């Protein structure tokens, strides 16, 4: 054996040994360079935080029950509400008949709609703590309003269960033009459709979210 033969043999070391060597070398380099590791660690944390924030921004609207904009404000029979849309007066409500009446003074041509919220019970069950719970499907039942269908998220939107009367005449939708309108909404079909109805009707528009409350017994407040 010569030194040259030995050197040539070392050149032909099996590749798994070299692989093991380079993996160990990389590990040693990383230990030697804590600043690089720290930078990588903080960069990873920052990336995770951005991801969480972005996910929250995207997902949160689907978790929180949406108004289209702004908080709910509750009004009762006899209340008058002013907004950039105009003025809405809650004239009366008869829960047993399933009808409510509003006076709408429209100042703009912006579309608005009236929306009811309700639910059907999909199943009832007992959770691990012994609490009786219901799994429900939620609904928005609205006077026809294109944008609202897209904003309804996990609620099923229905726009043909309300019978709308404007100034004594049946119509398909709330008028767009400026003007004063007496609007009666017959929501009696919801009693057959749903297992429960929230005791409020919402007036939805671009500018403001208004919710008019009516009790089960239809008593004015």
């Amino acid at each position: 054996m010569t030194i040259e033969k030995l050197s040539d043999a070392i050149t032909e070391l099996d590749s798994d040994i070299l692989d093991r060597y380079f993996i160990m070398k990389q590990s040693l380099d990383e230990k030697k360079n804590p600043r690089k590791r720290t930078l990588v660690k903080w960069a990873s944390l920052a990336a995770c935080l951005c991801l969480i924030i972005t996910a929250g921004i995207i997902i949160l609207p689907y978790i929180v029950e949406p108004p289209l904009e702004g908080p709910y404000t509750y009004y009762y029979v006899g209340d008058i509400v002013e907004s950039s849309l105009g003025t809405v007066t809650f004239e009366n409500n008869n829960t047993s008949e399933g009808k409510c009446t509003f006076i709408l003074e429209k100042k703009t041509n912006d579309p608005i709609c009236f929306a009811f919220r309700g639910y059907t019970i999909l199943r009832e069950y007992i959770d691990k703590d012994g609490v009786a719970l219901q799994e429900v499907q939620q609904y928005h039942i609205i006077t026809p309003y294109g944008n609202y269908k897209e904003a309804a998220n996990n609620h099923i939107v229905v726009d043909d269960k309300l019978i709308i009367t404007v100034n004594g005449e049946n119509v398909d939708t709330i008028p767009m033009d400026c003007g004063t309108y007496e609007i009666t909404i017959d929501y009696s079909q919801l009693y057959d459709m749903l297992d429960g109805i929230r005791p409020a009707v919402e007036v939805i528009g671009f500018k403001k979210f208004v919710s008019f409350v009516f009790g089960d017994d239809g008593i004015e407040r």
Partner: protein
Amino acid sequence: MELQRKQTATMSDEKIVDLYWQRDEQAIKETDIKYKRFLLLLANNIVHDMCDSEECLNDTYIGAWNSIPPARPVLLQSFLATIIRRTAINRFNANKRQKRIVSEYTVSLSELEDFIADEGDMNAEMETKELAKVISNYVRSLPDRQMYIFVSRYYIADSIATISNELGCSVSTVKREITSIKNGLKKHLESEGYVL
């Protein structure tokens, strides 16, 4: 510019090898970005001349281009290291005929010379590859630290100071380990029938 280069994200070995298989010359560029510094270091450890090291590097890229495919190395660094070591040793031997070269490679080899007999005692029947297998089996059996020292010293031809710095230990510790590795290699070769 060097700082910018270091901060560039490098492609994975798998993707670079795919480029070779697609005969995309971007493979060479990506190989250069990822491994140039290491390959030059290895070559220079042997030939001790930067111009010769650059030529070895170019020969290595050609060798890789001609070998992949059919080869499909998993760890590209190991594959390239083998090519450039061969190339650099050939260049070293060619230069040696003309002049004496002092390099870490010759120093590391001289450490092994003390248990290698003269050329006249060479076992003619043992081929280089068989010897490589025997040595590989020995190195494979070493603990990580000693394996690392062996490859660093006798394959990469790193200096003892460099190895001690990488392992975070003293030079004297590395020297003691090298002595132990040499003694173990000698016993292993003798047990495999080599007359030393």
